[in-house]
């Protein structure tokens, strides 16, 4: 066992955390984790649940002549009315998205590739195989991806680009999940009954307008928009009623368990309370913290798992729950510890939620089940500090439970309550890897650039790991992201459109075939010219990606609507419009994945080709093509060239220019619903999975080596001059022109002892904030502990690490990823 005490007697790295009480500890131990490892579920025994897919397929077959949005509304209604509901022993919060705790649902309506993959896995029970094949057969012709492929003529270049697998994630039309931020507040305050009342009022107004229909036809006019509006509103009502029914079914189940089954007297009493709560909410407004958490969980699962497959859990958690926690404490229903217990119970619901997704995505989020990131801290809409008892209780629950998910985003601002910041520090120093910390002012300013009011901008939460968006009525409807892999683009520049290291294909045109033509890299006279070559190739990719994305978004608005999500937005009800088709605040971003390596590579070229003239460009290219085989001395030289993260202007200025290009490579792209494409360099865990897809680079890296993590973290082990030097390097990049920019930093836990350790870190963070750096997150773990965990994983189940924008159990990471995490430079504080 790896347990040890700090000087102030806080146990760190113990194996099961410190849940508030025996009930929470038992719940944690009996939870089925849905984490993935190397693209497979890490826990043995995870199986597919047929309920959701079976019901959705049946409803869609039964409704083939009906408007699409109504088909989706009916499917959501029937799934919530018919799918098996589950309650685990001792649970406080009800709701699971499959028919048993070890099962996960699948969503055949979306990605054909994902369901093809399912057929050949051990996750399907033998008795279900035939039915799975029938469902796959139906959706292979009717899924959203199938509709895209039937109707959109992909160019040969686009097809090659996607087939090569070289440019980041698959096209948006293949992986088809969204990351919405529902307006939870509307349901908490009005209840679904309030929303249904609004929907019915709009339906009546719209129906009245039907009186003009005949007149419109007589005049040869177009069919008025009332028809679509009425259909949308019908679908909203169906979905809302489905969720009400789902809650009532949980109420009945709780009551039956309490009254007819052998349970402890304590849980029996609690089950009867749960039965009362589920009969009340989300139909009616919530009054207590427990009711509010239950509303959140039903609504979240309803939207993100039952209606369709979504990723993420965006919300401003502390502010959302603060009034309910306050009310419950004032009424004497609970005390502070009772609130912590409820937040602990809520955490466990995230851990057990699972879903079937493409292997590619599971590999990319190895160690987690999906990207649950909830946001706390920052300022309120009026500009005052938002840290509260609710923030503190949430952080205490996370510290106690020691689970990888949900991860937190803490919005750092200089006036944040120090008591809360100390709790943030406690989580960080004990190795949880969260909260991840974002600069509140930088993100608020960015959202003002998106067209938000100051109050909207101050309401922001992270949508997934990094991207900030307002919450509430202006919450995000649809995830609008396309990623690109700059190291691969550098290879295209080096090899004139070829991808010799991974696909072996000629993916992009030669330099001479561009309009106007580009000269070859061998003729380049500066890194500025190489950056410009990259910009033009990235811009070409961006146009292909965003054209397919725009078309995909358009098709989704016609065929893949989200009525239940729409119910939460006043704008959707007032306009009678499904949320998939429009944005209140357009928020498009393009993510250069593994962005920093190119900066170091360009510094290598600057040093050894342009300045020292030790090698020619052709020699460098030949060495990289050979993966340095036969060029070992050259590899050593390139490895020794200046590296980012050491406050060295020689390389930092190159990186700064490169990131300026990243900020603008897609400036001339026109998104479907307005706005512009912002750039958000990041890595998720693709620094590991892209390693084998990316050839040798002129930073001395070989084919297969990990790439740089984060958006701007120094390449593994290359930052040698301490944490302040890293901050100085990072601050030279203009963060204000990017949607976000993540720095991962590994810290020595031994430098975090007592009050002195806190204040050293606090001052470091205040300096970080003043530098205008967007985002930082920490790994704080002894190398010795990590090595122990590699040797004896069963004894280190709760060793949590920060992988990327999410935390994960170290034992669930691949060995490759584990080694990459250990290789990060360990900095000392103070």
């Amino acid at each position, binding site marked *: 066992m790896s347990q040890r005490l700090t000087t102030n007697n806080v146990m760190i790295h113990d194996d099961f955390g410190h849940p508030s009480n025996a009930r929470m500890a*038992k719940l944690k*131990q*009996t*939870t*089925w984790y849905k984490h993935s490892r190397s693209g497979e579920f890490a826990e*043995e*025994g*995870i*199986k597919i649940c047929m309920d959701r897919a079976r019901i959705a397929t049946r409803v869609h077959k039964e409704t083939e002549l009906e408007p699409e949005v109504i088909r989706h509304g009916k499917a959501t209604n029937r799934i919530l*009315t*018919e799918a*098996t*509901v*589950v*309650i*685990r*022993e001792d649970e406080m919060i009800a709701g699971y998205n499959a*028919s*048993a*705790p*070890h099962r996960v649902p699948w969503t055949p309506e979306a990605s054909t590739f994902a369901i093809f993959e399912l057929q050949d896995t051990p996750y399907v029970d033998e008795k279900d195989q035939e039915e799975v094949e029938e469902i796959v057969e139906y959706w292979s012709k009717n899924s959203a991806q199938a509709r895209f492929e039937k109707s959109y003529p992909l160019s040969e270049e686009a097809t090659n680009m996607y087939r090569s697998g070289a440019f980041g994630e698959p096209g948006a039309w293949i992986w088809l999940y969204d990351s919405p931020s529902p307006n939870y507040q509307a349901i908490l305050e009005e209840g679904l009954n309030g929303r249904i009342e609004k929907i019915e009022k709009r339906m009546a107004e719209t129906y009245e307008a039907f009186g003009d229909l005949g007149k419109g036809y007589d005049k040869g006019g177009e069919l008025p928009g009332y028809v679509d509006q009425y259909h949308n509103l019908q679908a909203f009502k169906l979905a809302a*009623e489905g969720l*009400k*029914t789902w809650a*009532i*079914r949980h109420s*009945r*189940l709780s009551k*039956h*368990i309490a009254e*007819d*089954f052998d349970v402890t007297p304590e849980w029996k009493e609690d089950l009867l309370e749960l039965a009362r709560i589920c009969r009340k909410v989300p139909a009616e407004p919530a009054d207590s913290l427990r009711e509010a958490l239950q509303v959140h969980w039903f609504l979240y699962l309803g939207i993100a798992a039952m209606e369709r497959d979504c990723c993420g859990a965006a919300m401003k958690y502390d502010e959302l729950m603060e009034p309910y926690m306050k009310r419950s404490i004032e009424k004497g229903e609970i005390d502070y510890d009772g609130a912590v217990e409820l937040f602990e119970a809520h955490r466990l619901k995230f851990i057990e939620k699972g879903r079937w997704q493409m292997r590619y995505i599971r590999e990319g989020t190895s160690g987690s089940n999906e990207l649950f990131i909830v946001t706390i801290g920052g300022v309120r809409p009026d500009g005052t500090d938002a840290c509260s008892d609710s923030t503190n209780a949430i952080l205490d629950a996370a510290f106690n439970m020691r689970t990888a998910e949900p991860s937190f985003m803490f919005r750092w601002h200089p006036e944040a309550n120090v008591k809360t910041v100390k709790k943030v520090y406690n989580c960080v120093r004990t190795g949880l890897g969260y909260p991840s910390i974002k600069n509140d002012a930088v993100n608020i300013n960015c959202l003002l650039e998106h067209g938000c009011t100051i109050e909207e901008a101050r309401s922001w939460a992270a949508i997934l790991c990094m991207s900030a968006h307002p919450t509430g009525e202006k919450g995000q409807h649809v995830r609008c992201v396309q990623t690109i892999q700059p190291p691969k683009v550098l290879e295209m520049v080096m090899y004139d459109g070829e991808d010799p290291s991974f696909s072996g294909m000629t993916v992009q045109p030669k330099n001479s075939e561009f309009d106007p033509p580009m000269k070859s890299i061998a003729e380049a006279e500066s890194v500025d010219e190489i950056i410009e070559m990259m910009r033009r190739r990235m811009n070409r990719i961006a146009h292909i990606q965003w054209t397919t994305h725009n078309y995909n978004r358009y098709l989704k608005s016609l065929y893949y609507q989200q009525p239940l999500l729409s119910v939460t937005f006043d704008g959707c009800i007032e306009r009678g419009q499904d949320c998939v088709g429009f944005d209140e605040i357009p928020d498009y971003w393009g993510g250069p994945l593994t962005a920093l390596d190119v900066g170091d590579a360009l510094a290598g070229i600057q040093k050894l080709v342009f300045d020292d003239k030790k090698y020619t460009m052709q020699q460098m290219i030949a060495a990289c093509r050979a993966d340095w085989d036969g060029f070992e001395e050259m590899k050593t030289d390139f490895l020794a060239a200046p590296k980012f993260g050491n406050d060295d202007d020689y390389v930092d200025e190159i990186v700064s220019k490169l990131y300026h290009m990243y900020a603008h490579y897609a400036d001339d792209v026109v998104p479907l619903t307005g706005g512009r494409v912002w750039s958000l360099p990041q890595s998720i865990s693709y620094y590991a999975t892209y390693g084998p897809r990316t050839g040798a680079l002129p930073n001395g890296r070989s084919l297969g080596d990990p790439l740089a993590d984060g958006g701007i973290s120094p390449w593994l082990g290359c930052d040698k001059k301490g944490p302040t030097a890293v901050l100085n390097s990072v601050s030279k990049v203009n963060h204000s022109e990017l949607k976000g920019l993540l720095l991962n930093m590994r810290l020595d836990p031994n430098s975090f002892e007592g009050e002195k350790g806190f204040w050293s870190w606090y001052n470091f963070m205040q300096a970080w904030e003043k530098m205008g750096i967007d985002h930082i997150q920490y790994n704080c773990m002894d190398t010795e502990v990590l090595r122990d965990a590699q040797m004896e994983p069963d004894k280190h189940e709760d060793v949590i690490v920060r992988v990327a924008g999410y935390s994960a159990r170290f034992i669930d990471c691949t060995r490759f990823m584990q080694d990459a995490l250990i290789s990060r430079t360990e900095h000392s504080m103070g």
Partner: protein
Amino acid sequence: MAEENVVKEKFYPIPEGDPDYEPGKYDCVREIEDTKGRYWTSTTVFRDPEND
């Protein structure tokens, strides 16, 4: 592996006032044990009331 053992099964008619009420529609409630612990499920079924 997740061994699923049904410990107990009971049927409850859905109350008339509930939104999913239909004549002959029941909640089939099962207590199940797997390798990690106990849980309960409820699935809606149609059955002959004379079976009660």
